Each structure stands twice: as C-alpha cells, then as structure tokens.
C-alpha cells in the first residue's frame, strides 16, 4: 500500500520502519528534517508537506503530540485534506481528547476523507517490536481497508466503535496505567519504608492476584532505579489531563485517577517531567521524607 507517515518521533519512527519492513511504500514529511533521516535511508519517499504526502498516498498516518498538532496536520494549510484524493483514509495514532477526535473526523468526512482514530499502547518497545496494542474508532469499511497497516505495527488490533471510540479506549488505558504506576510505586515504597527488601516483594506478588504488566515491567525499572524514558511523565500528565477534562464534561467521578493526576502534576512541578513515569517512586520517596539510597 502507498502510505504517508507524519510525526517521526520516538514512536512514529519505528512504526514507519515496520511499515516499510512489511512491504508498504512509505512517504514521509516532518517539520524537522533531521527526524526524517532514518526513514529516507530506509527508502521512504521525501515529501515537502503533509498535503504532498496525502497526494502520493492512499492512506496517511499521523503520530504527533496533541490535538492542535493533529488539527494542523489534517486540516491546516498544506495539510492532508488539501492533498487527499477520492477515498483517502486518514489515521491519527496520537493520543488526544475523544471530543477533538470526533470533531476532526467530522470535518474530514465533510471533505470526503475517511478518518480513523487509532491511539496505541505499548510504548517505544512495542513500537520497535511491532507489538503495539491499537484501539480504533471510525467506520468499519475504512478500518478493514487499512487493517494490514495496523497489523504491521501492532499485535493486538481492536475496532472499538465509531469516531472517537479509540480515544475513549485509550483514556481507559491511561486511567489503568496511570493509577497502576502509582500503585506499584506506593507498594514498593511501602515495603522499603517498612524495612523489607522490595525486590522479593515484587517477585512474590507476580505470582498472585496483584500480578500486572506494570508490576512486572515498571516495577523492575523502579527496583533498578532506571528512570530513563520510556514514556515521559509529562506525556502521561497530558493524557491524565485529557481524562480529567472528559470526566468534568461528563459529570463523572474518577477519584483514583484524580489523585494520580495530582501526583503527575507534582512530578512536573518538581523537575521529574522528563523522566519516565516510573520516577513516580522518587516523588513518593521525597513526600515521605527523603529519597532512598
């Protein structure tokens, strides 16, 4: 398939490379040319704008930071909508608010472009391995057409429902992973403050009902005091703000997510924003009287 890819950051770059590996022809454009280099070396087509990408491809994918960026890429000057031909599919794989995804999809549909929101879970590791979890909102017909592309980037691909539904699933994912990281950090900090070695605690818990992927992966990185991103705390903070704004709009109480969002705020305000989310442990240590050894 002729595929355009816009947004070649930590996640986007390996995702686009996996598309090439699966035999698709990929066209790329980026605001910062140097981020295109790895893709151009792998044989991707060099484009001058998002519109140019859309002109050359039947499907464009965007993977950028936030809703205004998605708007700009899809509907801004020299954006996808300007270059897209009849039957074009635009897939946004960024994490943005469900309401924003719905609004963008409706405006693209008015121009004859099918839009899918397809946010992912699995981090940089999942992007490199092609094992991302992909949650999709949008029309079934468009979903079926681009399924081979999703399968080149992820190992678990689910169509959740209509436009915006993928972002709703991603918000649910962020509630679980955000609260989960906080819970694992609290448990490990609790063990150590109680004078118990946290490593065997984690080991034991992995065999029981408290098992989770977060306890396994994030818990290990906390024990290793490896706070390199991964998934930066400020990005998780952004996602939690989306969740809390939606809860406000819906008249919905999310007490555990709310507490977690405040911990992420504290991380940002105390210089831990560029660390991985697992630096939640450092924050909790400071709150309870000084960092560990």
């Amino acid at each position, binding site marked *: 398939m002729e595929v355009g890819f816009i947004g070649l950051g930590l996640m986007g770059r390996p995702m686009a490379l996996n598309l090439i590996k699966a035999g698709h022809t990929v066209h790329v454009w980026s605001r910062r040319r140097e981020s295109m280099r790895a893709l151009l070396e792998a044989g991707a087509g060099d484009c001058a704008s998002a519109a140019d990408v859309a002109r050359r491809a039947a499907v464009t994918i965007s993977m950028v930071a936030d809703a205004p960026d998605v708007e700009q890429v899809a509907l801004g000057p020299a954006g996808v909508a300007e270059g897209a031909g009849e039957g074009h599919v635009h897939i946004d794989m960024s994490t943005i608010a469900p309401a924003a995804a719905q609004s963008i999809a409706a405006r693209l549909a008015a121009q004859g472009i099918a839009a899918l929101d397809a946010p992912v879970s699995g981090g940089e590791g999942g992007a490199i391995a092609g094992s991302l979890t992909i949650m999709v909102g949008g029309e079934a017909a468009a979903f079926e057409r681009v399924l081979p592309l999703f399968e080149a980037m992820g190992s678990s691909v689910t169509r959740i429902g209509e436009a915006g539904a993928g972002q709703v699933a991603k918000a649910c994912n962020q509630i679980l992973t955000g609260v989960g990281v906080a819970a694992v950090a609290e448990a490990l900090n609790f063990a150590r403050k109680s004078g118990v070695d946290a490593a065997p605690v984690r080991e034991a818990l992995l065999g029981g009902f408290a098992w989770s992927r977060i306890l396994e992966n994030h818990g290990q990185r906390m024990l290793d005091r490896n706070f390199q991103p991964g998934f930066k705390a400020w990005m998780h903070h952004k996602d939690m703000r989306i969740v809390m704004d939606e809860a406000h709009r819906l008249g*919905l109480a999310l007490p555990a997510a*709310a507490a977690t969002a405040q911990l992420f705020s504290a991380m940002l305000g105390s210089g831990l924003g560029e660390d991985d989310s697992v630096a939640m442990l450092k924050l909790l240590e400071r709150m309870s009287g000084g960092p560990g050894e």
Partner: protein
Amino acid sequence: MGMKVGFIGLGVMGEPMVRHLRAAGHEVALWARRPESAAALVAEGVPLCATPAQLAARSEVVVTIVTASADVEALAFGAQGLAEGFASGAIHLDMSTISPATARSLAARYAERGIGWVDAPVSGGAQGAREATLAIMAGAEAAALARVRPLLEAMGKRIVHIGPPGAGQVAKACNQMIMVSTIQACAEALRLAAAHGVDAAAVRTALMAGSAGSRVLEVMGDKMLRRDFAAGIEARLHHKDFAILMDEAAKLGVPLPVAAQVWQQLNALMGQGMARDDTSSLLRVLEAAQPGA
C-alpha cells in the same frame, strides 16, 4: 461625586449591586443579553443601551459580572463589544470569576488601547451582594484600582488589592478551593455523626464554638441539616470554577490532592442532575453512594 457607570450581568448578584451603586450616587446604565432581565431596573428609570459598545461609550467604568471566561472575552472584544466603545482612560471592572490567564490577556489587550482593567471577583454570595458586604479581591494597577475603589466600596466591605491584573482571580481560585473543600468536609462530618447515631445538629452547634468553626459550617451546615438544597450559588458554577483552577494548577505543576477529590464529588453531583441546586448538595452525593444507609 458620582461616576458614569455601565453594568452588565443582572443575575442574582448583579441586580442588588446596581441598586447599591445608584444609592451611592452613581449614574448607572445597563446592557443585557436578555433585555427582560433588566425589566425591574428599567422600570426604576435605569437606561438600557442597545449594545455593549454603546454602553462603554457613555461610561467611565463598565462593571461586568457574568458566567465564564468566554463570556467576558466576547463582551470585551466581540462584535460591538466594550472595546469598540470605550474612550481612552476608561476602565473595564470585571467582577466575574474567570481564569487568571484570561484576565491577564484581556488586561494586556486593553492596555494597548489605553484602557484600564480591574479584575475584582467577589465572595459572599447573593446575601453579600444584597447587604453590600461582599469580600472583593482585586487584581489591577494601583491607579486603576484607586479610580474604581468608590464603586467597590458601594458594593462590598473588604476590598483587598492582591496584585497586578489576574491576581484577583488567583485569590478567587484559592477562595473557591477552601470554600468548596470545606463544604465537602462539613458534609462528611455530618454523615459521620449520623452514622454513629449521634445528633448532627448538636455536633454542628458544638463545633461552631471551636477550632472547626467556619462560615461554611454555619451557613451550609445549617442548610444541610434543614435539607434545604435550594441554591444560593448554583453548584454548576462551583463545578465550572474547579475546572478552571485544576487546569491552571496542572499547567503550573502544582499538586492539589484535596481539591482534586472535591472536584470528583462535584462531577458526581453534576452527573446526578443537581447542577442548579445548592453546593450543600454534596451531602446528597455522599448519601447516594450508600443508598439505605
């Protein structure tokens, strides 16, 4: 000596505020989005202008007390807005509760045109407006505040200059946090007393004399005991205020763990359809979580 004053926002607060300004000898004119909301004052001989711009053209100071940031922005710089009518040296005195960021931005835009700005949100509710006992927290340049001080003194009792434009709104955000969090604490305390089978009214009376005594326990605690949930200030307005202050706190990286939980209780209140009831309905949110208890 009386000033020429324009007034916009004739809700439960605005109407008595206009009467106090007139009683103090100021020459007041009005604009209203819904002219019928001005009927009572017009019948008393207060002139009604056709647009905000016309009102501004005949006023030294225009007072606004409306719902949201977007309302104030539209009144100020929308079509036929205040900025079109103000003469150089006039002042927009906004007494609404809006975001500090919006207040700062409006002040800057007015300053380019030689027009002054004062943000002066109030605390004290409908009763404070009727009795001219409002607490007023002002954000302004000292000279602008000095000019509008006679107007503020006609409407309120305690006028504190907090700092430059926007600072009044910061103080108001702090006010809302403390007040609504205290309402929640009162509701929880009354539930605790009731769960023990103890007379909650007697508890409240005892507490009023001690360290837990507060205006909220006095007024809202009494409303809760009488199960009088008719607004005072409608809960949806506190809900709106919380979205503003939590969003700004997230941007600043300031954790507000208690306020975050109170926000969730407000979300639940909205979800249960009590938007237009009094915020003392937070008691009913707790009750709804334990039907039959």
